[in-house]
């Protein structure tokens, strides 16, 4: 992935809008909330696939990683699934409230190959990290097909926005309430043509399936990985994934010859969050 010289900063912004995109199901599976905020500087420097570390307003909880969903003009947005204390606290924010965060962080998707035919696979709130790449690719004239999977129809949030952005949208739900009844990767496997590249963001099991399917299709896959973060900036080594030492993203580390190893644990927040599937050793 393109390693960006950091344009990150602490941003203190004002919430512009709050929308509940999906209702809550249980306390550990709350609503999906969209927060738009005034952050022209962030919009200016954000690359597709980057994230922010949002600081929960109470000032008592660790900041939490959230993908940058929209970025246009003065407004950027985050979209999150309320599943624990930090997202619950962020969900209390209303228009006019203050939202602080650091970002943009991480390296985004690698679109430098100027792919003409791209398959984007999103699972659940993974959708939050793929709107910007989809828009950028369409703008660049690529044909983009979104494979979008979720537990149930109500969690297939904002699909219209992707159609409007010029994507061809295919959906799947675990319960069959909308689109294909089953896993979204089953649709990807039936792709009419082999895409130039597959971009994916979602839960690990889905990403592993994407890696398999893309390999079978003979396409390269860029996966945006999820892991619990602490610092989000490469300072704590808490968010690693095993990577081939030969990868351009692998942190510099001694090889077996020098007592090291040829598999290196790379920081998802710093070297990632996007990695080439074939370079992962997970």
């Amino acid at each position, binding site marked *: 992935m393109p390693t960006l010289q950091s344009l990150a900063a*602490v941003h203190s912004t004002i919430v512009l809008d709050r929308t509940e995109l999906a209702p809550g199901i249980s306390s550990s599976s709350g609503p999906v909330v969209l927060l738009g905020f005034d952050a022209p500087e962030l919009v200016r420097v954000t690359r597709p696939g980057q994230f922010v570390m949002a600081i929960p307003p109470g000032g008592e909880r*660790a900041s939490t990683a959230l993908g940058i969903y929209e970025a246009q003009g003065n407004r950027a947005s985050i979209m999150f699934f309320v599943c624990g204390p930090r997202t619950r606290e962020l969900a209390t924010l209303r228009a006019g409230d203050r939202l602080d965060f650091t970002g943009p962080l991480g390296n985004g998707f690698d679109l430098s190959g100027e792919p003409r035919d791209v398959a984007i696979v999103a699972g659940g709130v993974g959708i939050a990290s793929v709107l910007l790449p989809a828009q950028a690719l369409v703008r660049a004239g690529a044909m983009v097909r979104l494979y979008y999977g979720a537990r149930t129809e109500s969690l297939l949030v904002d699909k219209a926005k992707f159609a409007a952005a010029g994507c061809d949208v295919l959906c799947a739900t675990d319960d069959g309430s909308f689109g294909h009844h089953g896993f979204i990767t089953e649709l990807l496997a039936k792709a009419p043509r082999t895409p130039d590249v597959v971009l994916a963001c979602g839960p690990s099991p889905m990403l592993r399936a994407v890696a398999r399917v893309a390999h079978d299709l003979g396409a390269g896959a860029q996966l945006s990985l999820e892991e*619990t*973060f602490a610092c989000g900036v490469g300072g704590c080594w808490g968010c*690693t*994934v095993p990577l081939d030492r030969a990868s351009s993203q692998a942190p510099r*580390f001694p090889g077996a010859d*020098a007592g*090291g*190893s040829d598999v290196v644990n790379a920081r998802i927040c710093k070297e990632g969050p996007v990695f080439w599937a074939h370079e992962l050793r997970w």
Partner: protein
Amino acid sequence: MIDLSVKLGDLELAYPTLMGSGCYGSGEEFAPFVDLARIGGVVLKSVTRAPRLGNPTPRLVSTAGGMLNAIGLQNPGIDWYLEHDVAKFADRPCTIIGSVAGFSVDDYAYTTQRLAARPEIAAVEINISCPNVAAEGETFACDPNLTGRVVRAARGATGKPLIVKLSPNVTDIASIAREAEAAGADALAVINTVRGMAIDVDRWQPRLGNVTGGLSGPAIRPIAVLAVYEVARAVKIPIVGQGGIETTTDALEFFLAGASAISIGTANFTDPRVPIRIVDELREYLTKRGLRSLRDIVGKANLGFATAHQYEGDEG
């Protein structure tokens, strides 16, 4: 003019705030958010003799008022570290303190000697208490004799300021502190993380790849404040208090308990602006009370400490 500088043995810090080992990379990672010239210093991630891949993931779990970590000391080993990384620390605008971990007395002596020899490194902290490494790594800090031996070895390996980091996972931390002081430590870091674990009730398995981990954050603050309070009564060398410091009130609890400096780790994950905020508010606090130096409050809520140290006309 308020004086926030502190001395830990021969180590002079412009500000009393260090960034906890393993929490702040080498400072560079936080440079986009913080003026490093105002944070006091960074304690680097612990380095070992041989390279270490670290623990399997998950390495982090958030818990009530804190978090568990089990990184497993991932690092490239001292050779590679000296060759590729240390030179970069030269241009940091703050004090850089190395951190050494190991699995034998000799490891500590060897790694400390090699690291401390470098001009980029102002002082060395030995992490004899990292609770994340299954085997021997931990026991050093849990046994007075082992602590004495390892500190003596590290002391013999360098003339630079030597900070010994103590573990709270012991029956009597004061006795360990006395051994470390007797063995030649210039300062003590109190405390490292508290051992703990969390279980995934859906998957019926430990939430950390390493099963157990180290608890940090506000949840452990009362444990840390007491540890500083007890150690301060047991030794005369300065203490770097740490464990859940998130606000200026938190920091003040440590100074009043007897710490000469503090270290901030997990709070940087809450908000990277915390260290600067604390420095600014400490200045206000002293000003409001007409005090001129942090030394005027160190140990002031710790009678035994204050008397012992006043006897030497030294309040720090």
